């Protein structure tokens, strides 16, 4: 009986050692699982074009396009009317002395007074206008062309475009735009910021394809 128990114990210990050795050899135990690179197929052109349309739907929302004008002034509101108070673009897209963007727009939203704000409030350069001088929104193909043209987009490569969407304070502001003077919330773009970044990433991975004008 004692001999049988010893044999059973030996068998148990042997099995335990085999299990421990197997576990030690697996990526899970060595911590490789979390950092293991998944094999991801590159996004297809079709997936890239579909992602671009999502990005375009955000870029042409009033929270974004109101400061991507083709005119000497920014716009305001969901109806994209001319900015009140005789505000003009100025040489650096930040207004003129005594009537700068920062004359009202501070580093954060002022919900008690209805003035939106974020770090470095300014107009996009004219090279990145997404509407024509008559306030007509440019086509998907034309906005895409601007965004991928390094002579127009502040010399951003694909990674730079993605980083801009991820980190630019004014991009972040569009998804947390605060309240109007009457206390109502400003309308939001059709995607969340995370969805915008994901769509931009897919588009970038597909080598930033642009649609053609009809």
């Amino acid at each position, binding site marked *: 009986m004692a001999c049988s128990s010893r044999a059973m114990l030996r068998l148990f210990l042997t099995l335990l050692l085999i299990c421990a050795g197997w576990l030690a050899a697996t990526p899970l135990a060595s911590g490789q699982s979390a950092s293991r690179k998944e094999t991801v197929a590159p996004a297809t052109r079709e997936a890239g074009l579909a992602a671009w349309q999502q990005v375009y739907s955000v870029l042409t929302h009033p929270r974004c396009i109101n400061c991507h004008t083709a005119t000497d002034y920014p716009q305001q509101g969901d109806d994209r009317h001319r900015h009140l108070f005789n505000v*003009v673009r100025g040489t650096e897209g930040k207004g003129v002395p005594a009537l700068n963007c*920062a*004359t009202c727009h501070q580093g954060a939203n*002022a919900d008690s007074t209805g003035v939106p704000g974020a770090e470095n409030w300014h107009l996009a350069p004219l090279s990145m206008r997404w509407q024509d001088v008559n306030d007509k929104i440019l086509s998907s193909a034309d906005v895409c062309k601007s965004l991928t043209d390094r002579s127009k987009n502040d010399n951003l490569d694909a990674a730079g475009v993605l980083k801009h969407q991820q980190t630019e304070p004014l991009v972040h502001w569009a998804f947390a735009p605060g309240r109007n003077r009457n206390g109502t919330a400003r309308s939001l773009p059709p995607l969340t910021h995370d969805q915008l970044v994901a769509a931009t990433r897919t588009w970038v991975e597909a080598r930033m394809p642009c649609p053609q004008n009809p």
Partner: protein
Amino acid sequence: METYKLTVNGQPKEVTADPGTPLLWVLREDLKMTGTKYGCGIAACGACTVHVAGIATRSCVVPVSLIGDRPVVTIEGIGQDPVGRAVQDAWVAEDVVQCGYCQSGQIMSAVALLKKTPKPTVTNIEQSMGGNVCRCGTYVRIREAIQTASQQLK
């Protein structure tokens, strides 16, 4: 309510206010500096203009909580600055003021303009002063006074 430490016209000030309280009301009600005027309350008229870190700022729409450590200069303190002094002297020389209600804001904007653009063109003046409204219609004298101050500063 929160307590805020401000620097106004070079002097340290401490006020207790709701974070959303516009700077204008902190100046007028808490600090009793009534030279800065309430006009429209929506940044449309410029009567409430002060300087925050040298930038002309509509104090009626900027909550005190967003001022931080940036220095504030009001009409009560702008005369200590050479450009401010020149503008105020020009205002007197050109007899700009009629009712006077908007004029502290006009002067604060004019100083901000001349500090950045010492020799402004008429277009510069019209663009920079375009956010300051005067119901008495003193615009022509304001423009002349800015040009006078500009010449005094050469």
